[in-house]
């Protein structure tokens, strides 16, 4: 046996392969098992993980720049985060740094050593003393950077200084057009409640001609004029019209937009011609239906994924037009996520999305949903939603429920053959009626993953219509044992029941623990189901055989 050891779990080939696929939370445990496991974990650890580095110690757990440089100097392999054979960290989060023109030996050494290899960088809650400090660090120290995030930093630059925009030719000649940065994330909002930026958007974006992903956080209406979203897009437009830039943006995202209405930017978006594949839009509470529609129209031909957050207590979209149905053909769209108040829309829009495969309408997220996330598509997005919730409460929920408010008669000619996943959740959601479920099943015959509120009759329709279901989460749940087992006391008949869903891998009702799948085949066995329904096994040997004879 190659590279054998008495214990195969010490074999580096075995370990390396397993560590490549294991979730990070488990990799953390694995690294603490023994030294060989720690060593084998390093390749993936240093490739995938971000190292948080503070300039000064603000808590006992934090790694400071001084400590980090000392550790990387030491030869002891276990404490050497830069030992070459296992690769070196390439993703850094710098927190609470102070960049100034004073010659700081430690910072210079760090930037010289790690700047050239760094691929991902986030600078968070840090201070730049001047525009020059910002430029020398951000534009010049990281030649291989692919991803840059500027998050809540303070820049000691006055609003007046940003207003001075040099002529476009000067901007172009000073810019680094070779930049490899593809992902850019900007959050201009600092802890003290002010927004600032060290230079004009024109000069800044001139340095990032190859952007593919742009994520903007907290660009609401109160931001100083020079820094608002409109000006940012206008700067990009100037660069494309007068500077020869051709923006190949594939993902565009806005977050935490609260009361922003987008009416100022809808005329700019079509001119920018971003070939967007994915759009994430926080529509806040003030976006008007017509503006929202215009934005979607701009990307109707290319958009495959649309994520909409409604970070407010109300939604103008619905208040102005309770029957809002988007009204734009989105033929390429396969994934749609409507979160927070945006999850209050009805499903009438489905007629415009013939190729949809996965739809989430999630107003808020609870622990059951979080636990189920790995069994659904987009677990990361659901975790993000959960983190957002911690930040602010969605508050006064709008009493509009997507399925009950859907006009299914409008959808009678709509069939979505590709639809595999439907996830609907809101704390106050009602259970769906059998009629609604029947309408859904006609529209989405090939569903594999479903989360919805059900009672007995609706549940029976689910069991009869979607035999291919692999994941079923019922919440709220008014299905009782009679519903689950398809039996009615005193009557010798068997109605459609849980045992018809032979492909089920994950099943949970309400907030009870999920039924454990078989460890060997990863499906849920009849035995496990019987235990969950707390009933003795049926008098007949196999429910399924009996049931099939009946029909």
């Amino acid at each position, binding site marked *: 046996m190659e590279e054998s050891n008495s214990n*195969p779990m010490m074999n580096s080939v075995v370990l390396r392969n397993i560590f490549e696929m*294991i979730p990070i939370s488990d990799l953390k445990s694995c690294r603490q*098992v023994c030294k060989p496991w720690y060593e084998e974990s390093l390749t993936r650890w240093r490739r995938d993980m*971000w190292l948080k580095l503070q300039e000064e110690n603000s808590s006992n*757990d934090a790694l400071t720049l001084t400590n980090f440089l000392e550790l990387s100097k030491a030869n002891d392999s276990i404490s050497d985060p830069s030992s070459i054979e296992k690769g070196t960290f390439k993703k850094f989060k710098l927190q609470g740094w102070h960049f100034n023109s004073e010659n700081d030996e430690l910072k210079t050494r760090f930037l010289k050593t790690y700047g050239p290899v760094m691929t991902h960088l986030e600078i968070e809650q840090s201070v730049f003393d001047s525009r020059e400090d910002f430029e020398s660090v951000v534009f010049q120290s990281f030649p291989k950077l692919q991803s840059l995030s500027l998050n809540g930093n303070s820049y000691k630059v006055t609003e007046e200084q940003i207003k001075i925009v040099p002529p476009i030719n000067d901007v172009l000649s000073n810019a680094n057009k070779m930049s490899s940065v593809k992902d850019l994330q900007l959050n201009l909002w600092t802890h003290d409640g002010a927004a600032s930026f060290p230079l004009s958007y024109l000069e800044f974006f001139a340095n990032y001609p190859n952007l593919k992903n742009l994520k903007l956080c907290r660009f609401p209406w109160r931001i100083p004029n020079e820094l608002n979203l409109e000006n940012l897009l206008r700067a990009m437009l100037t660069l494309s019209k007068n500077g020869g830039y051709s923006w190949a943006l594939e993902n565009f995202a806005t977050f935490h937009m609260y009361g922003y209405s987008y009416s100022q930017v809808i005329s700019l978006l079509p001119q920018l011609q971003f070939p967007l594949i994915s759009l994430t839009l926080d529509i806040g509470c003030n976006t008007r239906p017509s503006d929202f529609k215009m934005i979607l129209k701009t990307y109707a031909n290319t958009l495959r994924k649309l994520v909409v957050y409604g970070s407010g207590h109300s939604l103008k979209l619905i208040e102005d037009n309770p029957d809002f149905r988007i009204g734009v053909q989105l033929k390429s769209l396969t994934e749609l996520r409507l979160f927070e108040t945006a999850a209050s829309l009805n499903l009438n829009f489905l007629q415009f999305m013939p190729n949809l495969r996965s739809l989430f309408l999630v107003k808020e997220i609870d622990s059951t949903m979080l636990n189920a996330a790995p069994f659904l598509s987009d677990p990361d997005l659901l975790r993000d939603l959960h983190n957002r919730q911690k930040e602010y409460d969605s508050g006064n929920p709008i009493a509009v429920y997507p399925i009950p408010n859907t006009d299914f008669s409008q959808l009678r000619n709509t069939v979505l053959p590709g639809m595999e996943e439907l996830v609907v959740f809101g704390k106050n959601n009602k259970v769906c009626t059998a009629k609604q479920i029947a309408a859904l099943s006609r529209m989405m015959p090939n569903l594999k993953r479903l989360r919805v509120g059900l009672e007995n009759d609706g549940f029976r329709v689910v069991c009869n219509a979607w035999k291919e279901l692999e994941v079923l989460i019922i919440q709220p749940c008014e299905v009782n044992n009679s519903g689950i087992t398809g039996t009615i006391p005193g009557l010798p008949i068997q109605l459609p029941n849980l045992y018809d869903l032979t492909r089920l891998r994950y099943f949970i009702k309400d907030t009870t623990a999920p039924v454990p799948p078989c460890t060997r085949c990863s499906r849920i066995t009849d035995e496990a189901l019987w235990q969950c329904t707390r009933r003795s096994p049926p008098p007949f040997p196999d429910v399924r055989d009996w049931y099939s004879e009946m029909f």
Partner: protein
Amino acid sequence: MALVRVISSDGAAFLVSQRLAKRSGKLKTEIETFRKSSDNSEAQPEIRIVTIRAEILRLVLQWLQQHQNDPVLPANQNEQDGRGDAEMGQSQWDRDFLAPMDLGIVMELILAANHLEVKGLLDITCKLVESKITGRTVDEIRTAFKLKSDFKGNEEEQTRLENRWCVEN
């Protein structure tokens, strides 16, 4: 049909079609090398695999046979997130195939799949072992796989700290 003799470390010979054998990256290279060095284009290649015993080689070939019509996955596909890949690719046949095996055999299969460059088999076998690790504490992992901590001094504490310094995204 062009055939190839694949011989295990303990001398058992398996006669398989070259088309099937070429589903393994390693065997494909070996067959091509043989073709280049051989004058007779009709000669039957013979490949000795000195690291894999007959029982394991039979299992690999059995798996290849079952999956001979699958699209070939590039070796580096899904490096960032091998999970989805393995999960999606695992059929009922795969589950039944792995079900009777003890952990030792699975380990040998991992090594064999790695050596013979059979990505799909490597994925499902690693996934099986991974499922025995996930959700367990450090001590539970040590007990399950009969491992002992060999950290010295503050090394274990250092590792714990390092876990806290690093984040996934």
